[in-house]
């Protein structure tokens, strides 16, 4: 009987899992660097790709990733119009240090603060760094957990694909 119920559940949920063309960005209130509330449902880049990267001031690989991309960001933007949104999950301990760090490193990203992990949870992020790629229809089409030196090249290849209208099928 248990097997049957479980099978039925799987069968019925199949169409739910078979979502075509990615996934919507979940909608929740976070803060921007000026203390304003920002709803993540409003994330948009006028039909061009978006990279959402979860990071923290205490996470070395996160900072390596975003600092490495910062060196290339001007070229990436020129070539594809991609926008990077760096979501800091720093809590009250380090939240006030996020803006000085971002300015100090001269990042040109849109930075959001998610101090109690509300957006992180809805995006099913286990650990940082965790990077998502969003297509021009605001659908999440790809994700990657952790960062190794050179990961940004794979990411940028996918951005270029999206930018030239190609589909990405791996989730």
């Amino acid at each position: 009987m248990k097997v049957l119920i479980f099978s039925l559940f799987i069968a019925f949920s199949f169409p739910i899992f078979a979502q075509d063309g990615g996934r919507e960005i979940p909608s929740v209130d976070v803060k921007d660097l000026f203390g304003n509330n920002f709803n993540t449902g409003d994330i948009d880049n006028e039909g061009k790709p978006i990279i959402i990267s979860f990071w923290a001031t205490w996470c070395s690989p996160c900072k390596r990733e975003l600092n490495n991309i910062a060196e290339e960001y001007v070229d990436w933007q020129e070539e594809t119009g991609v926008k990077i949104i760096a979501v800091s999950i720093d809590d009250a301990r380090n939240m006030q240090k996020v803006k000085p760090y971002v300015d100090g490193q001269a990042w040109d990203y849109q930075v959001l603060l998610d101090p109690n992990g509300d957006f992180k949870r809805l995006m099913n992020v286990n650990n940082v760094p965790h990077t998502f790629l969003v297509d021009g229809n605001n659908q999440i089409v790809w994700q990657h957990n952790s960062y190794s030196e050179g990961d940004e090249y794979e990411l940028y290849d996918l951005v270029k694909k999206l930018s030239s209208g190609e589909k990405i099928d791996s989730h």
Partner: protein
Amino acid sequence: MKIKKLLLAAFLCSQFLFLKAQENNKLPGEIHGNFEMTTQFYSVDTIIGAPIVPEKVLMNGFLNLIYTKDKFTAGLRYEAYQNVLQGFDPGYAGSGIPFRYGTYSGDLLEITAGNFYEQFGSGLIFRSYEERGLGVDNAMEGMRVKAKVRPGIYLKGMIGRQRLFFAQSNGIVRGIDGEFNLNEAFEGLAEKKTKVILGSSFVSKYQADDNVTYNLPENVAAAGGRLNLIRGNFSIFSEYVYKANDPSADNNFIYKPGQAFFISTSYSTRGFGLNLSAKHIDNMSFRSDRNENINNLLISYLPALTKQHTYNLAATLYPYATQPTGEVGFQADLTYKLKKGTWYGGKYGTSVLVNYAAANGLDTTSIDDLNTTRQAYKTNILSTGDIVFFRDFNIEVTRKLSKEFKLKASYFNFIFNNDVMKLAGKPGTFYVDIAVIDLLYKFNKTHSLRTEFQNMWTKQDQGNWATFVAEYSLAPHWFFSFMDQYNYGNPVESKRLHYPIFSSGYNTGGTRIMASYGRQRAGIFCVGGVCRTVPASNGVTLSITSSF
């Protein structure tokens, strides 16, 4: 046979519904989630003091599922501890679904029933949160309402009980919070350079008086206010919380009110960032059960005002943890980027981070009233106590030397008062210096090798340590690493041990599989304000995390 037929019917039926739904351009919602499973095989290793694990194999795991459909969200988390890994609280026993909720988000109201996480202001008065890696989870179970009354005015109200492992607290927590964003509320201020956000919260807990010796307050209230002021590159955040008398096991059942004050100011421009912050904590342990201890059932969140280090010798031997009964803290944090193309900045520029943190005890005058009013002491608010709890000076310089070569050099100096902290093995105050050289070499676009050479000097506790790390990565999928920690300066010769460990991992999409084999040193792992001590161990660890 029957089952197969049923299955087939169900499958066809679901596909029909799916197509039907697509026709109407109405998907039946989405399900997403994440999954983590960590299994450790423990070997016997008495030399390093690894506790004997009778089960030999232990596992922590969870699965989150979140269903969304338009304005409706529902979720649940299944957790399993068979049995709980070493270093986590043994209260996590068995398995169950301790977290489930439904949320409806309308234009005016957002209503959640079931479990939720929430934070008022910076969390000084109330924070319900999870830190899975530390085994901290004080999720609320009850109801929460959020309202956007008009632009710039945000209200929240909640009531419920906090999670304690697979059960709930004896006490009930309820609270309201209001935030007023002046620039959003008044059209005339929308474009003004100065931004002002005000906030105020009220939180109270109820717990029956279960004490025979004292007449305890069953309702304990706390109230707080906060201000966030931003003008151009300059910003101030400040919060104050007052808590009524709250006798508890933490404060030895005194009736003195508690208070907490936090202020942080920042100034930053392109290539320069400075943050100065200070705090004063007095008798601020606030739990929904007055008899609880460690990290259980905390209502207020009092993070350490120190930098969170990442190199293992700096992070896991002598980290600072807030003393909720009373402390005064100060921190300065500087980020600076030396210009590229100059003799001091090099070809690619150089990043410099400097940080200083200090924490002392309160300046108090004792009152001999333990048999009458039980205030115990009087706090002299404007001065700092003489007892040094912690000092931390650290500097980190990062420079890209060439296209292939990157260097990061760090220095740390700690003064750690273990008579107060009671985190390390021996009593006394420890004076610690640490130096780290971190080198990254890129062979090509995807192959790179990172090495760390760390050394710690101290005449106290376990003496000197050295750590060597080599990490080879093949982007975007593989990594291999080796680490050895060596306690070469231990005053006891037989304890001058090596702790070698190999790890390897594979990443693809949202999935990460990792395996490690070797010795793990006893250490203190902290995130935010809380720490967990992990005993030494030896063996194989396998972990899988996946997000879908």
